[in-house]
């Protein structure tokens, strides 16, 4: 409990998808695919394990429900804690990426 664990990539991408507004399960899947340039294809099992965990941690919450074509669509949205945690994680990743790029290309200024 002292130190926060590194966030898994799936969780990071799901929070990023929800940072743009509330979305339902399949919306998150397609958005995450787009954000990751097609690299991350979330499967239903992975998605709902992550959504369940993120909800339990208070980083996201169910927003509203719709029935479309007789199927349930539950929308999720980012909470205040979730936005804060995502920002922290993004800063951490930026710092790591900056360190790596600086060492790979010494002398080249990186924004």
């Amino acid at each position: 409990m002292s130190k926060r664990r590194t966030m898994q990539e799936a969780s990071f991408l799901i929070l990023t998808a929800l940072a743009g507004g509330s979305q339902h399960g399949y919306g998150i899947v397609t958005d995450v695919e787009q954000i990751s340039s097609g690299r991350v294809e979330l499967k239903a099992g992975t998605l709902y394990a992550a959504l369940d965990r993120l909800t339990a941690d208070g980083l996201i919450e169910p927003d509203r429900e719709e029935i479309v074509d007789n199927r349930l669509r539950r929308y999720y949205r980012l909470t205040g804690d979730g936005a804060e945690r995502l920002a922290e994680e993004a800063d951490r990743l930026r710092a790591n990426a900056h360190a790596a790029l600086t060492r790979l290309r010494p002398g080249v200024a990186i924004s």
Partner: protein
Amino acid sequence: MTDHSPLERRYRRWLALYPKSFRADHEDEMVAVLMQGTDPDQTRPRAREVANLATHGLRQRARGGRFPSNWERAHANIMFPIRIIIALWLCLLSTLLIGYHRGELWLLLLVPAILLHLYIAYRIRPSAIPR
């Protein structure tokens, strides 16, 4: 419930691997996601999708479908050092018994006990408890 397509029925059969509480929360929305990801002429679940459901379903089941309560977490945090201390104490006891040349039979009991305490300590180590 009766007019599900054969494909949906197959997916729901795989979802039965999840614990009841998880299914009550998420089964319908998971089916929606699974069905939205299928091709129009698809009649069987994709192998990778099924493998993913099986892995996560069994994993949820292994943790009883719920996250550990604060009490369970606190209990694990207290018991972890106690288990280690007991294991170390038993090691000391074994050393003394060997020193007095009485170890042989006692070690049959002590060694498994030490290993068991260390194993339990390993299972409840702080980093293993999901947040």
